[in-house]
């Protein structure tokens, strides 16, 4: 415990927190679009997993991790299109459909991995993103070290926060999304195409979740392993609620989860006499706290979870 709170430790802790929060941030931002339009997207986990896999496949066959990330986005959207078809068009229960998407993703990724690469004892490795130092900014003491020596995907994730904020609160598209999520009938009467808006939002959520998945397989690693997303999609669902369906809230929530995880690892290592299970529980405990609404009143979009019938 002795040298736990020196500056090097803090820098390491915070940059680990950033890395751990980015996949959650991507997926949670996506989930926010979907939920703001009234569609609960439990399928984020599955869309991330497909993205993680597709990113590796794209990079493997083209040699370019950028194309890999593009393929991840597209395949996340493909899963989302299926999800949108089921929930928005056919109007089947969103939670059940989301669970189905997650199960499908586990099977699909595992199957295609084996079909393409066989059963390997050493995983297939591909070209992947490496950290990029941003000139000038990365020279800022402490902050530069934490924020500006990351992979490009990290910068994209953080840029998406103000972009989403702008879209939601400054554009008519944002207004349409919010209206559709709050009162689809009112939206319909003023001529907003409810289903179309919802489909677009679900597609955006798939794209971002896919990108979040590729951050794991291409931004953190250069490989895919079965079920590598390991519940981050579910944490993202909680982060959307925790963040009260706003881009800045989602950013804060994702960062809190990231810090909790990074801290948990280090406290365990320091040999503090807290049972380690308690530390591992920490991020999930936060999730429960978030979902039960202990942190302030959480007002969800009013039409959340309800299919719109004309």
């Amino acid at each position: 415990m002795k040298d736990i709170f020196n500056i090097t430790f803090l820098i390491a802790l915070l940059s680990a927190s950033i890395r751990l929060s980015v996949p959650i941030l991507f997926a949670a931002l996506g989930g926010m679009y979907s939920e703001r339009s009234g569609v609960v997207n439990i399928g984020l986990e599955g869309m991330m997993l497909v993205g993680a896999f597709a990113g590796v496949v794209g990079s493997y066959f083209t040699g370019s991790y950028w194309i890999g990330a593009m393929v991840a986005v597209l395949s996340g959207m493909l899963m989302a299109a299926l999800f949108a078809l089921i929930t928005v068009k056919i109007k089947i229960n969103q939670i059940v459909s989301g669970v189905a998407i997650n199960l499908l993703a586990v099977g699909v990724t595992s199957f295609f991995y084996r079909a393409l690469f066989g059963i390997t004892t050493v995983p297939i490795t591909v070209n992947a993103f490496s950290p990029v130092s941003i000139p000038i900014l990365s020279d800022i003491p402490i902050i530069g070290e934490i924020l500006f020596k990351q992979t490009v995907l990290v910068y994209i994730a953080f840029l998406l926060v103000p972009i989403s904020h702008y879209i939601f609160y400054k554009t008519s598209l944002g207004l349409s999304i919010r209206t559709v999520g709050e009162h689809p009938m009112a939206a319909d009467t003023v001529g907003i195409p409810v289903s179309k808006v919802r489909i677009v939002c679900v597609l955006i959520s798939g794209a971002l979740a896919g990108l979040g998945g590729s951050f794991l397989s291409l931004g953190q690693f250069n490989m895919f392993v079965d079920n590598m997303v390991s519940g981050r999609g579910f944490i993202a669902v909680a982060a959307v609620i925790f963040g009260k369906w706003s881009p800045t809230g989602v950013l804060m929530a994702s960062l809190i989860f990231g810090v909790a995880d990074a801290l948990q690892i280090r406290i365990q290592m320091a040999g503090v006499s807290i049972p380690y299970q308690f530390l591992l529980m920490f991020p999930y405990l936060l999730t429960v706290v978030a979902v039960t609404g202990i942190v302030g009143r959480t007002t969800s979009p009013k039409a959340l979870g309800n299919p719109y019938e004309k």
Partner: protein
Amino acid sequence: MFKRRSIIALLIISVLILASLSGCGSQPKEEAPAAPAAPAASGDEGNKEAAQTPEDSGKDYKIVLLLPGPINDQGWNATAYEGLQMVEKDLGIKMEYIESVQQADFEAVFTDYGSRGYDLVFAHGTQFYDAAVNVGPQFPDTFYMVINSEEGQEPNVGGIGVREWEGGYIAGIIAGMNTDTKKMGAIGSFPFPVIAGTLDAFEAAAQRIDPEIQVTKTYVNSWEDIQKGKETALAMAEAGSDVIFCSANEVGLGSIEASKTKGVKAVGYISPQNEVAPGTVLSSVIYNTPGLFKGTVQQLIDGELKPVGASLGWADGVLDMQWTDDIGQDVKDAVYEAIDELKAGKIENPYKGE
């Protein structure tokens, strides 16, 4: 509308019943209803016959392997799958397998295969043991072999325990001889006695090389969360550890990746991992699990399966080394010395308990 639906449902049910009956051609047994997952029970006369005539090429054996995870987990389950391939290649017996069997389904799956008259059901993990003991007595013609269980029970539940701590011990010797900072990290999946014992053995062996060595032990609560494995190993390296050891399947890949990033060393474990990161992985302590499966199936053919628990280690050829060229002769000597001591039973299991 309602009528049409019920007709469709009836159709589906009858097709299912037909499909399941066509598979057996004899009267279902009375134990059948206990298996919710089973389409229907099949008689086992055919298999009994097979079991009684071992001279037959063996193609008639019905053997299934139940795995707690996916076969491409680069670790525990992957080695079992290799075992299955070895049985097929060397003994000419085709085994079935199911991946990612969930804890809640253990008994149902055991009941399913028991009622379908399988000769041998492999369950790849000690966590299957309780379910095997519960279900076993109902199906005396099926033998349940629980890998990594050191117990067995009459009449038909056997166990083959791997003394994993012996693997951890050797990894500790290798790590202890390759550290400069005298600090190293050991990552486990869950603090099961088997895993905790492996980490304790790693520590004990490292401290045998140099009593000043400090080993940081942590658990990631996952077999597959490679990002957490990477972050844990990064944090260990940042805190001064210069050798990382991980006993948690895919998570180990994460720790090796972190070691590579930080320029520290890693010890490969379970599957041959030297190629994952040449220059980073010192050498790998590997499991010869495939041999276990072959041996057990051979016992089945010879009619020698016994409902007892076995405990295997270096002395039984279950563990092996994959060396890299970077390893010096002194390390090899120390490792072989320790292996000999383990074989001779001179080293106590250093597991400290909960």
